C-alpha cells in the first residue's frame, strides 16, 4: 500500500515538475523558433515571475490575481528587452543576441538581488491550497494539483491560440518560411515582438507557479535555464511537440533521481541527454516543427 502511494506521489511529482519545465521550455522555443534568438536571460525572466508573484501576494493581493498579474509584468519586461536589446541586433548573427542575453541574465539577477536580497522567499498560499487531498490512495497537496491544472490550461490555451487564430497561424507560418510571410503583407517586426513577449509571459507563469513548489532565490533561474535547454535540445530545437515529450521525460527522470539518489539527479539528466543526442542528434522530433 505504501509502495503504491509512493509510486503515485512520484508520478504526480514528475508531472508537476515536467509541466513547469514545459512552460519555460516552450517559451524559449517560441522565441527561438520565431526569431532565432537563444534567450539566455529566459531563466531570469522565470525568476522575475516568481519574485513578482511573491511581492504581489505579500502586499495582500489574492494569489489568483497575482497569478494573472505577475506574468503580465514579465511580459512588459520582455517587451522592453526586445525593443532595446534584441531588435537592434536582428540583422546580425545569432552570436550577438547570445552574448547580449547572457549579459542581460546577470543584469536581471543583479536587479533581483538588489531588490529582494539573497535570502530565500516563500509565496504565502491561501489556506485551502496548503492542504492535501486524498487522491488515488495518497494524500497530495492541493497546490500541486492546482499546478497541474494550470499547466494543462496554459498548454491547451496555447495550442488553441496557435491552431485556431489567425495570429497563431501567422506565428506557425513564420516559424517555417518567414520571408514568405512578409511577402503576404505581415510586418515581421510584430511577429518578433509577439514571440518575445509571449515567451516572457510563459516564463513568468512558470515562475509564479513554481514559486510555492521550490524556494524563491536569486539563482533559481539558472537551474531552470539549464533544464529547459536540456528539454528543447532533447525535444528538437523549435519543436513544440518534442518539447512536450522531453519535458515530461526530464520531469520524470529528475523526480525519480531525486527520490533515489539526490546528489546525482542532474548528472543523470545530462547523461540521458547525451544518450538521446548520440542516437538522434537533432532531438526526438528534429528541428523546427512548430505545431
Amino acid at each position, binding site marked *: 500500500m505504501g509502495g503504491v502511494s509512493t509510486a503515485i506521489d512520484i508520478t504526480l511529482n514528475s508531472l508537476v515538475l515536467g509541466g513547469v519545465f514545459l512552460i519555460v521550455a516552450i517559451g524559449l522555443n517560441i522565441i527561438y523558433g520565431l526569431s532565432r534568438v537563444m534567450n539566455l536571460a529566459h531563466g531570469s525572466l522565470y525568476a522575475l515571475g516568481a519574485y513578482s508573484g511573491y511581492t504581489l501576494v505579500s502586499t495582500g493581493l489574492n494569489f489568483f490575481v497575482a497569478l494573472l498579474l505577475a506574468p503580465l509584468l514579465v511580459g512588459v519586461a520582455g517587451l522592453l528587452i526586445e525593443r532595446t536589446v534584441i531588435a537592434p541586433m536582428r540583422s546580425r548573427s545569432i552570436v550577438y543576441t547570445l552574448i547580449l542575453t547572457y549579459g542581460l541574465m546577470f543584469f536581471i539577477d543583479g536587479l533581483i538581488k538588489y531588490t529582494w536580497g539573497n535570502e530565500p522567499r516563500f509565496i504565502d498560499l491561501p489556506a485551502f491550497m496548503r492542504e492535501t487531498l486524498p487522491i488515488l490512495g495518497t494524500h497530495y497537496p492541493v497546490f500541486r494539483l492546482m499546478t497541474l491544472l494550470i499547466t494543462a490550461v496554459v498548454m491547451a490555451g496555447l495550442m488553441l491560440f496557435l491552431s485556431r487564430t489567425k495570429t497563431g497561424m501567422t506565428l506557425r*507560418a513564420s516559424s517555417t518560411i518567414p*520571408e514568405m510571410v512578409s*511577402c*503576404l503583407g*505581415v510586418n515581421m517586426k510584430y511577429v518578433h515582438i509577439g514571440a518575445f513577449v509571449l515567451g516572457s509571459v510563459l516564463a513568468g507563469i512558470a515562475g509564479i507557479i513554481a514559486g510555492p513548489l521550490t524556494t524563491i532565490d536569486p539563482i533559481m533561474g539558472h537551474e531552470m535555464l539549464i533544464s529547459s535547454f536540456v528539454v528543447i535540445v532533447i525535444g528538437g530545437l523549435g519543436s513544440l511537440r518534442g518539447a512536450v515529450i522531453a519535458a515530461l521525460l526530464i520531469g520524470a527522470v529528475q523526480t525519480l533521481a531525486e527520490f533515489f539518489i539526490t546528489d546525482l539527479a542532474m548528472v543523470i539528466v545530462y547523461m540521458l541527454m547525451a544518450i538521446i543526442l548520440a542516437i538522434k542528434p537533432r532531438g526526438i522530433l528534429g528541428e523546427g516543427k512548430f505545431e
Partner: protein
Amino acid sequence: MARKNKILDIEDIHTYYGESYVIQGLSLYVEEHEAVSILGRNGVGKTTTLRSVMGLTPPREGKIHIDGTQTTRWPAHKVSRMGVAYVPAERHIFPGLSVEENLLLAARPGRGKDAWDLEKVYRQFPILSDRRKQDGSTLSGGEQQMLAIGRALVSNPKIIILDEPSQGRSPLMVEMVTDVVRDFCVASGITLLVVEQNYRMALNVATRHYLMGTKGRIEGIATTSELREDPQIIQNHLAV
C-alpha cells in the same frame, strides 16, 4: 502622366548580393491588364529582378514604381500591401499549415463581382477543395503550384509576379499550370509578370516579352506574334 497606367515600372535598377553585382541596369514595365514575361537562361538574374521588386533583395540604385507609387527598397510587407502577389519558384507553401490556412493567411477582400475569395478558389481548383484540411506541404508539386497561385489570387492583387511556374514540372503539369495562369490571371484581367526559361509557357500566357541576358541586361523586347513568326530569335537567346 504616362506612368499612370503602368502597374509596375522598373527604371535602371542595380542589385547586388553582397559584393556580387547581379543586376547591372535593368528597366522594364508592365501596363495594367498586360501579361509580360521575362525570358532568360538560368542564372541571368530573373529571380533577382522579382526579389528586387518585392524588396527582398532591394536594389542599390534605380527606381521602382508600383501603380505610380515609388516603392524602391520598401520592405516586402509594404510592397505586398500595395497589391503585389509574389509566387516564388519554390512556391513556399507553409508546411504544418493546411491548404485552407495557407489560403487564409493570404486572403484580402477584393472589390467587384470578380473578386477572389476562398470559395472561388475552391470552385476553380476542386483539387484544393478536396484537400483543404490537408497539410499544404504534403500536396504533389503540381498541386502546390495551384495552391501557390490560389494564394496569390485570394489576395486580390493588382499584379501577380510569378517565378518559373513550369520549373521542374512534367509536360502535362506545365500545360495545366499554363491553363490556370491564362484562365484565371490573364483572362480575368489581372496584371501579370512571369519569369520563364520555358518559352512555350511564356508564349502561351504573355503578350510581350523581355529577353534577358547575363547580369539582367535586356537584349530585346518582342511581342508573342513576333516571336512566333521568327522562332530563331528565341533559339539564339536561350541557347547556351
